């Protein structure tokens, strides 16, 4: 009996690993290897890598990402605490709203920043860092908050009873307990900022470039594929190193505290918590609210005063897009739903593999790499790798959700791995001793405990797929644009109607995001309550 379980365990583990490996191999490694081989042609690009200009760009890329990550953590933690530990009316809405900036096209947000910031601050490092915080606070709130919400509060109560001050409880209990989630959120934020593109192009101007920006210019404007491939490899290597470090931190911090079901953790604000909650929400309302309000205002500001003209234009044919604009909602939803499905399958299998055996760190790193790959090189790779039968996928509709899932899967892995590691093995052992077969253990022990993080992961994956632009714009067919692609097409054209339609589409994108994330949260948190 025991032997048989062990055998299916090994086989099952191999199956767990096989699907993510095959997915990454076919849709990530193969296209990138194809474009790198074309670009480099066998010679090692020492000249490009050790060029003074390259070193300068690498240095800027690293330090701005480090600074952005630190600021994002500082800005996101209070909000993560508020949405995880305090029960207040509208908590679910705040949780869903936080994701909105994350899906907005960077061009739109950067332009909104230009409009809000005083002229002396429009260009340079300050606006870049501010915009990075604005975009990535969602990652901290969702990843850290989702984990925080499931830490059993009885420890904190015990510490409080024993006389530990709030600050001591935070230092000695909260921070160590949150370490796995903090490591995951920092890694994701860092990667996003490390590969930042739209924010840098607009708020940095021509004097600032990250590796990603330089690769884009080399690949699409100068057409120096050799240099583009060399810098892409450099970027991937850097990302690989960062991920390896962060996942080893995360694994070492591996939850020693038992996780509970969320509803136990949050309760009404008491004494000092009340002003802290109010202050946190007020700061968030201003920081998020102002740029978003500016966008919303623009969508109603027609030539004849406030009105719905730009929303009505969504249903009409226009020379600026090959289909009526509202169709982009349909395509976005379909692509994002498919991408979420793929990312959940791939990501959950990979996370299950990591949680059950610690030796698979190379796969852990591999799953994260798509976040660090240059979108344009991956796009070019798809175009030349999949051009002949039986791999003739250039026209296939499903290539879009596949590439979106590549970007979303790392989030699923990062959210699920700490949660799966955190399941107390004694629970499983107890169930097994009581005679539950492995399938039942998974269904009745693992699933309920993982359901809430699965919902968080699904919501975030969906949001990422909705907002993904860099690779989607490369592969989505022009008669099937997603919302960000359609917004971009309108922004590229002059005239009030085009700019207004872009603003209206942004508002639609925000609404769709809040709805989708809210639904994912609600579905999973209700059922998680037993």
């Amino acid at each position, binding site marked *: 009996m025991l032997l048989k379980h062990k055998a299916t365990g090994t086989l*099952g583990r191999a199956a767990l690993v096989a*699907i993510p490996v095959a997915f990454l191999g076919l849709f990530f490694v193969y296209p990138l290897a194809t474009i790198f081989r074309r670009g480099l042609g066998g010679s090692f690009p020492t000249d490009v890598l050790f060029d003074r200009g390259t070193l300068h760009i690498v240095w800027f890329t690293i330090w701005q990402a480090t600074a952005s990550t630190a600021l994002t953590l500082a800005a996101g933690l209070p909000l993560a605490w508020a949405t995880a530990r305090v029960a207040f009316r509208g908590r679910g809405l705040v949780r869903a709203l936080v994701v909105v900036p994350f899906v907005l096209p960077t*061009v739109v947000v*950067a*332009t909104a920043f*230009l*409009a809000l910031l005083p*002229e002396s601050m429009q260009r340079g490092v300050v606006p870049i860092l501010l915009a990075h915080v604005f975009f990535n606070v969602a990652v901290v709130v969702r990843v850290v908050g989702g984990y925080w919400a499931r830490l059993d509060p009885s420890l904190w109560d015990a510490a409080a009873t024993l006389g530990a001050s709030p600050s001591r409880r935070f230092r000695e209990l909260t921070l160590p307990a949150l370490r796995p989630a903090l490591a995951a959120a920092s890694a994701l934020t860092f990667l996003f900022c490390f590969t930042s593109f739209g924010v840098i*192009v*607009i708020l940095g*101007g*021509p*004097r600032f470039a990250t590796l990603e920006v330089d690769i884009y*210019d080399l*690949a*699409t*404007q*100068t*057409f120096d*594929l050799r240099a583009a491939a060399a810098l892409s490899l450099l970027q991937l290597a850097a990302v690989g190193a960062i991920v390896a470090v962060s996942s080893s931190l995360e694994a070492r911090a591996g939850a020693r505290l038992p996780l509970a079901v969320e509803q136990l953790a949050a309760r009404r604000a008491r004494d000092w918590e009340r002003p802290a909650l109010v202050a946190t929400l007020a700061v968030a309302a201003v920081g998020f609210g102002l740029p978003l309000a500016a966008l919303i205002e*623009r969508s109603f500001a*027609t*030539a*004849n005063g406030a009105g719905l003209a730009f929303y009505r234009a969504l249903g009409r044919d226009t*020379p*600026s897009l*090959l289909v009526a604009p509202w169709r982009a909602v349909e395509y976005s939803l379909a692509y994002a739903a*498919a991408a979420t*499905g793929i990312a959940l*399958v791939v990501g*959950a299998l990979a996370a*299950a593999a990591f949680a059950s055996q610690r030796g698979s760190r190379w796969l852990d790193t591999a799953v994260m790499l798509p976040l660090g790959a240059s979108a344009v090189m991956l796009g*070019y790779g798809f*175009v*030349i790798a999949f*051009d*002949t039968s039986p791999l003739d996928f*250039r*026209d*296939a509709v*499903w290539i879009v959700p596949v590439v979106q899932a590549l970007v979303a899967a790392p989030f699923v892995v990062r959210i699920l791995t700490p949660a799966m590691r955190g399941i107390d093995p004694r629970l499983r052992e107890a169930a097994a001793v009581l005679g539950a077969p492995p*399938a039942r253990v998974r*269904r009745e022990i*693992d*699933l309920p405990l993982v359901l809430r993080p699965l919902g968080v992961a699904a919501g975030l994956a969906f949001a990422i797929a909705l907002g993904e632009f860099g690779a989607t*714009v*490369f592969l989505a067919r*022009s*008669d099937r644009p997603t919302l960000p692609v359609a917004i*971009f*097409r309108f*922004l*590229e*054209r*002059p*005239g*009030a*109607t*085009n*700019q207004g339609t872009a603003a209206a589409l942004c508002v639609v994108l925000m609404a769709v995001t809040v709805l989708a994330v809210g639904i994912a949260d609600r579905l999973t948190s209700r059922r998680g309550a037993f």
Partner: protein
Amino acid sequence: MRRAFVVATAVAVAIVGASIGAAAPVARSVVLVTHDSFAISKSTKAAFETQSGLKLRILQNGDAGAALNRALLTAGRPEGDVFFGVDNNLLSRALGGKLFDAYTPAALTQVERAYDLDLSHHLVPIDHGAICLVYDRAWFAAHKLRPPYTFEDLLRPGYAKLTVVENPATSTPGLAFMLATIAHFGSGKAPWTYWSRIKRDVLVTNGWDEAYNAQFSGSSSHKGKRPIVVSYSSDPAAEVYFAGKPRTQAPVAVVRNTCFGQVELAGILRGAKNPDGARKLVDFLLSQRFQAGIPLTMFVYPVRGRTPLPAVFMRFSPPMSSPLTLSPATIGANRDAWISEWTDTVLR
């Protein structure tokens, strides 16, 4: 949990399977590969499809530079049959890449000689336009300052910090404007002297949409502060057409002496799956029907002679008679060197 995975996998496989089925290429279709600024009205597209019996599919592969580079990358195994959107600035790169098969459409006789830039007819002209300094009329009226008339005006007192230009390394209009200064000042040191004198007064953006929609004060978004921008000669017509209400005057005007001519060409991609359909499509791009639709869809001008222009164009953006130009060969030979000279002069 494993069952959940099985179900989810099955769903994903079903989605993928269904979409493979849906994506099977239509037997009789022709594919146009182009850039993001390409546009065609539904009725014109339908007219082509009825007349040729072919379904027209359009692939928009980024801005003009990105779309061409992607075509070069897939040379010989093209993503479609016809490529539209090589301009005079990129012509030498496109021809050097052996991307196209030669074809001389009958309608080419209707096109003015000046636009026929590739005499081997691997590429044939479809539309033309111009990149110019464009200014905000209301701003100059309110500040009682004479609007600019020439390049040299930007050096005059009162013009400090009024202008937005795009980076020629990353933007097609930016490249055209740099070429305009070279065409105007000559190819020696003079253009760089000019640029070094104005560099403190111009704001450089990486792309046109930031320059026009966020930094320029005259666009309908009203977000910017600077009243002069490098943009398209058709902006006055576009601003009136897309204003959302009737206007008797355009909010922006063009500095005609600073315009650099742009011609966009199309060709049949070598290795096209449907070369016969490709020829029909090129013929159609030069037909009266398509040419007449060019102004109000792409906001450039038809190359075919005697094509009527819409009233909004005649009134607010009449065609440019003789803009500044440089030969495609000159541009091809010097483009990269000029861009680095510009970068060293303006950004360092």
